[in-house]
Every structure is written in structure tokens, then in C-alpha cells.
């Protein structure tokens, strides 16, 4: 929530920063080959400082153990969009309290005598995800303010796409009763049919439009 205060100004900063999309080393060298005129950014952390990502299999193993612990102790697996939905309901309730309390979907979280809408385990989980991500990024010196995008799109364009994609993901996550984590990974790992169907359709949807937004990434 606090992070939102930074929405406006960093745009300009970031615009200056992100001329060279700084990714993993490989991507960077590739970009450098393609575009020789890439301007040098004065205060970008040097490449030597940033630690490389773990092997995907090693990170995946850690993620699997985490999910296993979540099943063992919580009994529910992981989740993210459920927490964001609670936050959304809380925001919307601040705007239109009567309307939200009477609405069919958010309304059930605002019953008299019930817990506060944000008193929900997934709200705490996503706070944890942010904290864990921050610890890892700090430890590996990977924090770098930027708008991540391919060379073929403006920063502004990228942000519009991020917003639009976010709206679709927020909507679809509610419709499918979970996102990549809560529905796909969590359910898929136990071979729940619906979760596997969701995952398959997610990749189908992604591949179907990937070509049309390629300038955003490639």
C-alpha cells in the first residue's frame, strides 16, 4: 500500500534508467550486440556486483519444498491473488461502503461481527512474498528501479500494457478461483484436474497473443 505513493515521479527517473533493459547477463550482451549505441547509465550497479540467478531447477526445488510445507502446515498450499482480492475489496469498500457490503462477491467479507476483510491468511502471505523477495533481491544486489521492457516499446506504452494485463489477470484470477500460484501451481502439484486445465489454458492464452505483443518484450 505504501509503495503506491511513488507512482508518479519515478516514471521520469525510470525512463532515463531503463534505456538499456538490464536483465540477466546473457540478455544484456545480446542487446548490446544488437544496439551498439546504448547509452551508458551513470549509476547503474555494475554487473559484477549483481549475483546471477539460481539454477531454475534449484529454485524450483526450493519452491516445491515451500509448497509442500504450505500443504503440510497450512493445508491449503500457496496463493497470491486471493490476498490482492481482499485488498481490492478493502479499497473499494473505502470508496463505496454501502454498495460493497451489499454486493454478491465482496459482500461476504464485510459481514457484521466477522473478521476484518484484511484479516485473511493470504493477505499475510503476499506481504511475506514481498518481504522474501526483498530479502533475496537485497542479498543478491538485484534491486534496480526501472520499467522493464523490450527495446521496441516506450516506457509509457509498457505501463499501459502492464495496467491492461493487470486488469485481465485480476479479473481472470477471480473467475478461475486463483492465479498461477493459488490455482495453477498449488492445485497442479497435486494433479487436481481443474488446476491443470487452468494451467494449460493459461499457456494457450499466452501463446495465442504472444506474437501480437512481441514488441513489448523482444
Amino acid at each position: 500500500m505504501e509503495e503506491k505513493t511513488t507512482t508518479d515521479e519515478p516514471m521520469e527517473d525510470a525512463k532515463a534508467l531503463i534505456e538499456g533493459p538490464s536483465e540477466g547477463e546473457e540478455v544484456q550482451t545480446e542487446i548490446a550486440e544488437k544496439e551498439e549505441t546504448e547509452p551508458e547509465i551513470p549509476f547503474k550497479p555494475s554487473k559484477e556486483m549483481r549475483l546471477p540467478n539460481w539454477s531454475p531447477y534449484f529454485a524450483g526445488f526450493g519452491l516445491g519444498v515451500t509448497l509442500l510445507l504450505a500443504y503440510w502446515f497450512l493445508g491449503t498450499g500457496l496463493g497470491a491473488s486471493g490476498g490482492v482480492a481482499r485488498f481490492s475489496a478493502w479499497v473499494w469498500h473505502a470508496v463505496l461502503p454501502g454498495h460493497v457490503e451489499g454486493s454478491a462477491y465482496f459482500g461476504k467479507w464485510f459481514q457484521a461481527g466477522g473478521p476484518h476483510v484484511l484479516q485473511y491468511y493470504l493477505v499475510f502471505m503476499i506481504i511475506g512474498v514481498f518481504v522474501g523477495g526483498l530479502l533475496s533481491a537485497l542479498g543478491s544486489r538485484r534491486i534496480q528501479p526501472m520499467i522493464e521492457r523490450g527495446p521496441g516499446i516506450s516506457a509509457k506504452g509498457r505501463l499501459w500494457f502492464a495496467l491492461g494485463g493487470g486488469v485481465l489477470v485480476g479479473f481472470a484470477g477471480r473467475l478461475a478461483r486463483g492465479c498461477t500460484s493459488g490455482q495453477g501451481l498449488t492445485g497442479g502439484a497435486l494433479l487436481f484436474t481443474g488446476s491443470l486445465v487452468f494451467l494449460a489454458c493459461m499457456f494457450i492464452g499466452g501463446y495465442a497473443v504472444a506474437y501480437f505483443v512481441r514488441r513489448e518484450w523482444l
Partner: protein
Amino acid sequence: MNGTLYALDLLQSGAGFMVAGLIGILFGFFLEQAGFGSSRRLTGVFYLKDMTVLKVMLTAVVVTLVGYHYLVALGWLSPDQVYPLDTYWLSQIIGGLIFGVGFVMGGWCPGTAFVGLANAKLDALVFLIGVVIGSILFNEVFGLIRPLYEGMHKGPLFLYDNLNFPPKPVILAACLIAVAVFIICALIEKTVPGAPKAQPRAWKHHTVAAAVLILFAGGLFVMPQRAPVSAKPVPRAGYLAQIDEAQDHLDPLDLADLIMKGDPGLIVVDVRSPEDYQKFHLRHAVNIPLTDLSQAAEKDLPRSGLIVFYSNGTTHAAQAWLEMQHWGWRNVKVLTDGLLGFWRECLTPPSLSPAGDEQTAKEALAAYQARRDFFMTSEK
């Protein structure tokens, strides 16, 4: 451990919040280490440029899948303490498709966007604002799309339920497929310039890791089956349909035939009290009173072959049948009309029932006498 926080109804307590927060920290840490604080890396999979997403997700899936079934086999975790994820064909197909479009457009999914935020990616923040808007939008149109949201609800189905296969071979197959996908990913990345290259000698480690995975998945076959893993998840709609189609019943004459033939795959279970069982029971039937069913079933009743329940009438046998369906046995039937029906159909002279021509009447009489001899003499 007495149970999961979900089963103890403690998710919404201080303990639940603390555990969820700690697991969230681990979750965020590993996501970040995987490189998921970068939207370009996340979307790389859609351009066959960077297969990290697929590798990380599939690895996590197989580790959890195999690990979970070991926890169950060791008796450390009971499947009925895990929140079952229902299958809703409509909303999961359409939701998945829209989600995928949003993912490749936005570059994030909700969980990874928080990691992106931790990496100070402005696009992650804007994406999350979009997710909030999308969630609110869903609430606003919920009344309209409710049929879509709730349509084609099938209960908590597992893939192996749909495939009509026992779980263990499906788990092993899933692991083998995962390894195959990893190999394909490596081949794709070899041909694509700019894809992240593995360490020069990494293939040795990968081979060992894959072998260990397959070994563990195969090891499940020798682990005891403590609890049915498709326990709760049997959709009631499914077995209610079976009742409707009368697939759940076996006629007395058919049962008599099977018993007299000595079919090795047949188990006949008498669910009445031991006293009733002592007085009379069908030959070769075993006695499992209804109250002992849940324990005895795990120990004595296989999931293949045919198990037939009977009581005096059908009520108690039908209760046993439902219970067994619920716990994942698909090979159970109930004797139509119970012992009374068996008596009427099989052990009373055929002349009392309307007969056809003389020849069939003779055969019927012979069959009746054979049955009478078989079932009315005591077992040695």
C-alpha cells in the same frame, strides 16, 4: 502434528497468519532467486526464448507431488486435511485463457508482481494496480457472470480420477513427462540465441537429479497405502449418477453365479452384526460390520476386482457402498434387495415364480438345486 491449520479451522487465527507470512517469505525468496522479479524473464517462455518459468514451475510441481504422496504414505499428512480444489470446467478454461493473455501483456502474475515490486520494478506496481481494478471489475459484474463462474462444477477431481487410473502410475508418468519437458527445454535453449546457458557441466547434476526424482516416484509403489488419495475428492454427482444408472447393484442370480464359480477377484462382504453372520451368511462372505468398515477397508479390501456388500435388506449395504465410494473405491456394488432378495431369487424353488417352457423350467430347477446345495450347506 494433529492436523493442518485448515483442518483445525485456524487459518483465520494469529497462528495461521504467522505461518502464512513465513511461508510467503520463503515463497518470495525462491521466486526472486529464480529470476521471477523480471517480467522479461517471465514472458520469455512465450517466445521460446527463456524457458525458466516452465522449468521452475514443473520442478516445483513434481517435488510437491512426490513429496506430498510420501507424507501421506508415512501417515504424516492426511488428504482430508487438505483444502480440495474443485473442478469448474467453464470458469477454469475461460479464466485460464484470459489469465494467459493478461500474463503476456502485463508481464507478471500476482505473486511474481510482488517480487517485481521488491526489485523496484515500476511496471510491477502498475500491474498490481491493474489487478486491483480487475478484481473490483469482477465484483461489479459478478451477478451477470455467475452462471459462468459456477457452471460445470465437478467437485474436487484429480487427474487420475478422470483417467480412471490408480494414482501411483500417474504420478510416475507425470515425473517422466517433466523430465522429458526439461530435456526439450534444454534443446530449445540450445538453438535460441540469447537464452540463458546452463553451466558447462550442469548436465551431470541434472541427470543425477532426474534419476533421484524418478527413483522417489517409483519408490511410492512400495510405500504402504495409508489413506486413499482420491478420498474426499470423489464427486458426489458422479456416484449419484451411477446409482441412477443402477450400476451400483448386482442381481442375486449374478452374484450366486460368481460365488459358485469361485471368481478369484470377488469379495463378498456381510455388513451385518457378527451374531447375524454366525446364524447365516453367503458362502465365502467375510463379515465386516458397518462400524468397522473404515479400518477394515484400508487393510482388507483391494481396489481392483469386485467387492459386493450385502445386509438383510439394502439400507446398510448401501451405506457401506456410499462410504466406500467416498473413500475412492470404484469396484464396489450392493446386492440387489439384500439377503431377502437373494433368498427369494436364488434359494426358493423356481416353480414358485412364473416359468416358461418345460426345458427352461428343468434347467432352472437344476440350477436352483445346485444353488441350494451350495449355499445351504455349511462351509467346511
